[in-house]
Every structure is written in structure tokens, then in C-alpha cells.
């Protein structure tokens, strides 16, 4: 979803360059902000509908409720809503705009294929996302990436204008450099955003391990989830970045452009933790 928004902004920027009208970029940025705000505010409802998650009943899943309750006490959070996705691939995600509107969704496969300590590791990771306010951070970074696009656009316009007016000796190199920078800045901003997202993933792993005091549980869970060979049916590109492990199989996106760090690195970091 994030990359989609940034793509809108980027597209708007390119079109506005081509057609030489800033209006297109502004509309694109406005749309992206608007959408980003809506998806932040209603994140729980939108995502749950997209993944077809159903609210888990306490009577049917007493063990799951027990795990989440215990870890919430350990993390100092109030109990989030718990949802289950009828899906064989083990996976989970958390969403919601703040601590009091938080949602945790797990797949049926997660409950069936993982042991208790592993499930605890996964839930603790998701609670860590809620506690660390990662949804809010995500929204803010997308907004900032949009601002960078606007700034670059302004600069390009102003500089083209002044370039035509006064051609001074020796200013060409600086000029070309500045133009290059303003072209590359939006791309760099996007890469920074992805890097932040990966950092938060590591952080959630670490915070989660601190809640359970058992990093091995999450490490084993990640191994199990990653070794499951089939893609998830109800996941889409818009929701993929939310999951604890990418729900798609077989597509190896380049490191630089993914929202999650490689599984092997996460497992390694967890196994090297000293608690």
C-alpha cells in the first residue's frame, strides 16, 4: 500500500514534468495524502476486509486469547482485537491506528503448525509493532516522501526559469548537480522509507523477544513460516508488507526494495541476542 502511494506521487511528478504543469503533481500528492490518512485511520477495517479475517471468539480459541492476554500484560498494552484468517500458510500481522484500536490477525495455519513458544514469539513481535507505534511512523514517512517530491519539483521549476534568464560562467556544473539531486531525491526518499521499515522490523523482533525473554521461539517460528512453500491466497501487494513474513513465495525482490529484512538475517540477529 505504501509503495503504491509513493508510486502515485512519483507518477504525478513525472507527468507534471512532461506536461510542465505542477497541478498534476499537487493532485497526486493530495490524493496520496488523503488516501494515506484514510488508510491510517481505518487501517484495521480496510485490512481485515482485504484479508478476509474473522474475529476470533474467546470460547473457540481460549489458548490464543490466553497467549495474547499474557503477552499484553508483559508489554503493558491493553488487549487488542484478535482475528483469524482461514488460510493454511502460517503468518500474522498487526494493524490499527493506535494502542486502543489495535488488531492482531493470525492465520489458521499459524495456530496449527506452530508450537506455543513459537506462537508467543510471533504475537510478541506484533504487539511490539503496536507498542512501537509503527503504523503511525509508516504514515508519517509516506507523507514525508511526498513532501520531498514537491520540493524537488519546485526546485526544478525555479532553476529552469533562472537558467534561461542568466547564464553565468562556471555555474553549469553546480546546476547540473542540483538538477540531478532533485531528480534523485524522491527515489532516495523512497529508499530511506524502505530502510526505516526494515529497521522497525528488526526492532519489533528485538522488542518481542524482550517481552517473551525467549528469542529462540520467534527464530524457530520465522524458520517455519519461511519454509512453508505456498503463497497466501488472500494476501495482495497492498497488504503484503504488514505480515511478519512476506506471504508471497517464489518472488525474490531485490534487497534494497523490500520492506522486510531477509529472514536469515532476522533469525541470525535473534539467535545472537543476549537477554
Amino acid at each position: 500500500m505504501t509503495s503504491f502511494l509513493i508510486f502515485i506521487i512519483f507518477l504525478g511528478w513525472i507527468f507534471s514534468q512532461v506536461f510542465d504543469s505542477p497541478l498534476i503533481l499537487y493532485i497526486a500528492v493530495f490524493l496520496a495524502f488523503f488516501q494515506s490518512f484514510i488508510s491510517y485511520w481505518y487501517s484495521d477495517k480496510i485490512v481485515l476486509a482485504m484479508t478476509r479475517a474473522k474475529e476470533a471468539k474467546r470460547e473457540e480459541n481460549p489458548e490464543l486469547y490466553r497467549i495474547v492476554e499474557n503477552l499484553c500484560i508483559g508489554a503493558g498494552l491493553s488487549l487488542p482485537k484478535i482475528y483469524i484468517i482461514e488460510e493454511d500458510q502460517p503468518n500474522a500481522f498487526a494493524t490499527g491506528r493506535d494502542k486502543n484500536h489495535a488488531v492482531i490477525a493470525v492465520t489458521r495455519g499459524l495456530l496449527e503448525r506452530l508450537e506455543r513458544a513459537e506462537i508467543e514469539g510471533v504475537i510478541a513481535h506484533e504487539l511490539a509493532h503496536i507498542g512501537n507505534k509503527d503504523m503511525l511512523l509508516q504514515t508519517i514517512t509516506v507523507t514525508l516522501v511526498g513532501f520531498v517530491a514537491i520540493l524537488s519539483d519546485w526546485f526544478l521549476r525555479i532553476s529552469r526559469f533562472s537558467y534561461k534568464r542568466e547564464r553565468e560562467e562556471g555555474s553549469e556544473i553546480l546546476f547540473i548537480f542540483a538538477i540531478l539531486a532533485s531528480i534523485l531525491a524522491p527515489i532516495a526518499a523512497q529508499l530511506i522509507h524502505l530502510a526505516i521499515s526494515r529497521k522497525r522490523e528488526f526492532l519489533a523482533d528485538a522488542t518481542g523477544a524482550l517481552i517473551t525473554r525467549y528469542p529462540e521461539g520467534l527464530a524457530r517460528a520465522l524458520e517455519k513460516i519461511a519454509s512453508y512453500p505456498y503463497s497466501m491466497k488472500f494476501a495482495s501487494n497492498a497488504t503484503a508488507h504488514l505480515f511478519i513474513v512476506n506471504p508471497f513465495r517464489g518472488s525474490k525482490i531485490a534487497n534494497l526494495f523490500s520492506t522486510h529484512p531477509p529472514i536469515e538475517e532476522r533469525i541470525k540477529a535473534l539467535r545472537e541476542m543476549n537477554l
Partner: protein
Amino acid sequence: MLSPVTIILILFVSLFIWVVFAYDRLVALRNRAKEAFADIDVQLKRRHDLIPNLVETVKGYAAHEKEVFEKVTEARTKAMGARESGNLKKMAEAENYLAQTLKTLFAVAERYPDLKASQNFLELQKELTDTEDKIMYARRFYNANVRDLNIAIESFPTNIIASIFGFKKMDLFEIPAPEEREAPKVKF
């Protein structure tokens, strides 16, 4: 150039702002630790409330094991008294003792197959284990918060504010012997 008066004024204002922030942080930390303690308290109460039921259930199958029941009941009364007093050391000790007597109770239950198969007993046992897990997590959260508060109270320069406004370090809630941390579990 700034006049000396302005410079002094700026210094005072920034000092004042810092004092306000440091004070607010200490208050926030203290409140968080107190809230975390309330979490432990809730779970301890739940544990104490479960015990009479458990004793009654075991009594139904093993009425003559009076000694054990008396011990558990006594330990529970003690633990409840300690909870009322709010003294952490006393509470830890009493809870520890209670855990030991519960262990003997479950050891006794081992000898009665009918009891072990009873739905009611299994349910109570599960509840108790769950409560002990929750006590452990609540204790961890409380200790982490108390540690943050104590560090803030001890470290420079917040320690100045802490001593002026009388912030006191709080005690950690620790269960002494490591083997007592485990919930009493019955093997089947």
C-alpha cells in the same frame, strides 16, 4: 549583542523548562510503575480466589488429606494478608510459600486417578497455571518499569529534581528461589 540581563533571563527560563520536563518524566515513570503493580495485584487476587475452589474439589476425592488442606489454606490466608499490607518482600515470601504448599497439594492429587480425570479439577488447574503465567508477566513488566524509575532517580541530573520533590526508589518484585518461578505443574 545580548545584554547580560537577557542572557540570565534565558538561562533561567531554560532551567525552568528543564525542571518541568524532568519532573513530568519522573511523575510519568512513577505512575507507570504503580499501574504495573496494580496488574500484579489483580492477578494475585485471582490466584487467591481460585484456591478455595481447588481445595474443595480435591477434598471431594481425598477427604482425609487434612494436613495438606490446612497448610494450603493457611498459606493462602498469609498471602492475602501480605497482599493487603502491600509490602513487597512479605508478598514475595508468602507467594513463595503458597506455591510450595500448592505443589504438595498437586502431588497429593497425583495419587487419585478419579480426581485427576475430573473436568472440574482440570479446569481449575489450567486456570491456576494461567494465573501464574500472568503473574510472571505482570511481575516482569512491573520490574522493568521500576528499573526505569530507579535509574531516573539515581542518575545525574534528574537525581537533583528527584531529591527536591521527594521521589523515592521503588522495590523490585522478585521471587527468591529460581525453581519457585515455575508454576506447579502436574504430569499426566
